């Protein structure tokens, strides 16, 4: 079963670039571990929320604005898409994401919609 793991943290706590690099290296190592177990489906850090753009379509009109959809105290910093047997397995993986030590990892079970394109 697929789960999307969303890593949130207060961008303000990432002041030390060496620390950020170390966390990223750890995340990469985690992806390889997961891949070896057949659990890895994708992952990436995201550029800071200042680079975000929001798009809404209302009454046929496209509205584009600068910034995230909402101002929050913690922002989305990265994601992992995994395949795990159950929630406990997903929780164990989420706890290994380095960002979990600085912020929060939200686990969302993915709805398996039939009829989506197959990726290799």
């Amino acid at each position, binding site marked *: 079963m697929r789960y999307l793991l969303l890593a949130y943290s207060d961008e303000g706590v990432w002041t030390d670039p060496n620390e950020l690099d170390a966390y990223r290296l750890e995340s990469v190592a985690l992806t390889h571990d997961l891949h070896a177990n057949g659990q890895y489906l994708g992952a990436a850090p995201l550029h800071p929320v200042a680079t975000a753009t929001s798009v809404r379509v209302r009454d046929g009109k496209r509205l584009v604005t600068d910034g995230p959809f909402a101002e929050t105290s913690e922002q989305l910093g990265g994601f992992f898409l995994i395949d795990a047997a159950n*929630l406990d397995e997903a929780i164990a993986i989420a706890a290994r994401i380095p960002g979990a030590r600085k912020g929060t990892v939200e686990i969302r079970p993915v709805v398996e919609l039939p009829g989506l394109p197959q990726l290799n």
Partner: protein
Amino acid sequence: MPTDPLLRLDEVYRTESRRAFATLVRLLGDFDLAEECLHDAFAVAVEQWPRDGVPENPRAWLVSTARFKAIDALRRRAKFAASLAFVATRLAGSREPISDDEFEDDRLRLIFTCCHPAIAPSTQIALTLREVCGLSTEDIASAFLTAPATIAQRIVRGKAKIRAAKIPYQVPSLADLPERIDSVLAVVYLVFNEGYSASSGHSLTRTDLTEEAIRLGRLLVELLPDAEVLGLLALMLLTESRRPARASSTGDLVLLEEQDRSLWNREQIAEGRALVARAVASPPIGAYAIQAAIAALHAEAATAAETNWGRIVAWYDLQLRADPSPVVELNRAVAIALLDGPAAGLDAIESLLNRGELADYHLAHAAHADLCRRLGRFDEARDSYRSALARTQQEPERRFLERRLREVSGQ
């Protein structure tokens, strides 16, 4: 007039249905399907048992019958969803549990699933009471002074969460057990408390809930005999041992100091004390073990006057170091009053009330009233008894407080 087999069926329904349910949840992988098929199995029993006699192992018969009903149901639904045909086939081929141990394992799986940390605490309680203890939504609602619709919604959401997020139906691994057992202990204790001192309604206790909580406590001790688990079972047994003395024949509250100790259940006390000894011997001990140790000191005293309040205060001191909560402070203040006199306890309680944390807790006002009463400060006692009355809906407690209020109003 019900015939023998139907009386037996009624008994089986009351005593065995939750065990059968727990096993069916494992076999079928779905709470609602398990409930439905168990219901169907009972319907079959109503027809068959009077005709063919009561089966030798009713619980196993129920699981077996429910399983076949499930296979039929899944095959019918498989017309609309191919995946269900697979489940039906796998179900037809799976082995049924035969031993009592396997049934008990399934009950543990069910408790841990209902108390999973991914489920909100209020939902954990509702789910446990409904799915593990078999209480109706109405009973749960009245126990917690909530609307039945709210409880029903919580249960529906809880099951949806279990299904959608795929919370596994298993007892946690040994490594995860310490972290996971806390919420289970908390829920079991809540169930016990609800049974021992019902929040509303006319009866002081609900023995079905206390019995269920103690049964769950025993299961947990078998699984993980650490100090807190031992402590909780001890606390429940020692508290329960006083039940026969707690209410008068008219259903009125009898205070601990006035209880007829010859009515206390000596077997439960002996078991409770032995568990306390085991808990204290395997540190670190926590809140449950400490409360159990205090309950044991009460149980050991032949009369109220012989109670070792000094040791009780020492236990509260220890508990406060680990858990500096206002309720523990209140209990300690009451013990101080009994050790050093009402004036000493009153100071502690007044400063607690002034801090505001216990403003809505009826027992804080009742304790304050009692100490004022003992010191002859009747005006203050009256005010506090009124404050306490305004904060409790439990009939026997209200009658007791009203009686005290009359006493200090010179009537």
